[in-house]
């Protein structure tokens, strides 16, 4: 545990991973307090530009007990989850002044690991939106550390930024149709969705009834496994170390009619990554989903808009002027969804979910793109909205599949590239096998934002 050269390299770089920090603390070469103070120093230096942290609780973090599997590993959480005694505004004037009375259950679970909570991270209003940036919310938009003129991915806009820059060593976001996976993709991190119900969403402001899931964002897939193991008592890190040999990888490149082909640099990195997996012994075949990603996207948009409008209808009716334009537009669209259209989307969802169950008879994982674009220029339309709306993220949202986004390299302009892995419910270990094997076979984790 103490001689892994990658861990030593991470510590020397000043950007410890969770694995390297835990190894260093076990060796006695690094102290928990030093890791925490380094994170606080990065927040002090960078947050004025990047706007990733909305509420800092340095005193609370410093007072955290120092025992537990994640003791000394600072983290942050999207500001749509309740943390006792801290604001939970979800970047909305509708919730101005609101202080949470209790911890969300997931916060409680993470506190029990001994990890010090540094604060609340940036989000789009109510953890939702249209992809458009209107610069009309209480907090300024977070900015991408790889290029501060660019978008961070949303709606967990601060989570990827915090992790990529070492403000925190992991972050918790929430994802309805991509809000953990898009920030991971945009900032070069790893974002994970588990089988629905494995991580509790309770105590988080709902976006939809049926698709919201919390998920961790970390620098490496190994770190995500460590966080999940400490939180759930699972054994994903050990299982993920089994390698990719023999895994049946279904490659899905075509998003379907109505969506563009993936950006050329994303596509090139995807193919290069397939070569790595092939050399590792993965069994790669071309495949198609039972319905194309574009059809899943249509269904998810109808379901998401209608359910959000139902949840927030009273505020839309009484105080629409307090909302930012993105939230208001999404809710107004949702009010226009007919019951028959909503049920058409849910009927497709049922059929797609059932068909995916049969799909796994022949495949262990699906490998595809997350979004089809590079991180866009913030507020520049239509590229900003397209980044969020033109994706292959919704099949996992509809069918409740575990999913993982990880970095596959960098564009010529220095922007992170990515792919997405999906697997059958309950088979997260398989997903981690592929991700951790790829990570160990490449050196993309050695590069951080300047």
């Amino acid at each position, binding site marked *: 545990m103490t001689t892994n050269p990658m861990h030593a390299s991470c510590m020397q770089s000043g950007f410890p991973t969770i694995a390297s920090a835990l190894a260093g603390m076990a060796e006695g070469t690094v102290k928990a307090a030093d890791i925490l103070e380094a994170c606080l120093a990065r927040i002090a230096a960078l947050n004025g530009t990047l706007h990733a942290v909305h509420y800092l609780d340095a005193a609370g973090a410093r007072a955290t007990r120092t025992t537990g599997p994640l003791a000394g590993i600072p983290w942050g959480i999207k500001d749509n989850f309740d943390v006792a005694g801290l604001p939970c505004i979800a970047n909305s004037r509708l919730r101005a002044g609101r202080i949470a009375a209790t911890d969300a259950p997931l916060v409680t679970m993470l506190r029990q690991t001994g990890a010090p909570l540094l604060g609340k991270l940036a989000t789009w209003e109510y953890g939702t939106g249209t992809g458009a940036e209107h610069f009309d919310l209480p907090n300024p938009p977070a900015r991408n550390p790889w290029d501060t003129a660019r978008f961070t991915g949303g709606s967990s806009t601060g989570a990827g930024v915090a992790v990529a820059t070492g403000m925190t060593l992991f972050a918790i976001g929430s994802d309805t149709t991509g809000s953990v996976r898009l920030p991971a993709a945009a900032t070069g991190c790893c974002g994970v969705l588990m089988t*629905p119900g494995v991580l*509790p969403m309770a105590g988080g402001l709902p976006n939809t009834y*049926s698709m919201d899931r919390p998920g961790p964002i970390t620098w490496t897939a190994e770190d995500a496994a460590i966080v999940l193991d400490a939180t759930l008592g699972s054994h994903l890190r050990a299982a993920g170390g089994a390698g990719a040999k023999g895994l049946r990888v279904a490659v899905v490149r075509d998003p379907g009619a109505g969506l563009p082909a993936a950006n050329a640099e994303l596509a090139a990195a995807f193919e290069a990554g397939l070569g790595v997996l092939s050399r590792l012994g993965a069994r790669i075949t071309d495949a198609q989903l039972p319905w194309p990603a574009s059809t899943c996207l249509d269904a998810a948009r*109808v379901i998401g808009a209608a359910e959000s409008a139902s949840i927030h209808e009273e505020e839309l*009716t009484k105080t629409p002027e307090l909302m930012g334009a993105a939230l208001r537009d999404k809710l*107004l669209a949702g009010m226009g969804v007919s019951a028959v259209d909503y049920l058409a989307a849910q009927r497709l969802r*049922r059929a797609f979910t059932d068909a995916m169950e049969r799909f796994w008879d022949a495949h262990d994982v699906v490998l595809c793109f997350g979004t089809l674009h590079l991180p866009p220029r913030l507020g520049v339309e239509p590229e900003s909205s397209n980044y969020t709306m033109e994706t292959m993220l919704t099949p996992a949202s509809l069918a*409740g599949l575990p999913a993982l986004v990880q970095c596959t390299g960098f564009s010529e302009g220095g922007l992170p590239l990515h792919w997405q892995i999906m697997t059958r419910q309950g*088979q997260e270990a398989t997903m981690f096998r592929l991700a951790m094997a790829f990570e160990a076979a490449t050196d993309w984790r050695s590069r951080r934002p300047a």
Partner: protein
Amino acid sequence: MIPPNYAVRAAELAGGITAIAARLPRDWPKEHPPANPACEVSTVSAKPGEQKNG
């Protein structure tokens, strides 16, 4: 209810979402049911695979 000040914008957006919905398949057998939107959100963690969405 849509606030009167936003009726025009709501109509524009409703047109867009209706067009999206129109692309969804409709040729299901009559007995094919929708997914259950009331996916339970647990307050404690479940075992992987214990809960199925959709």
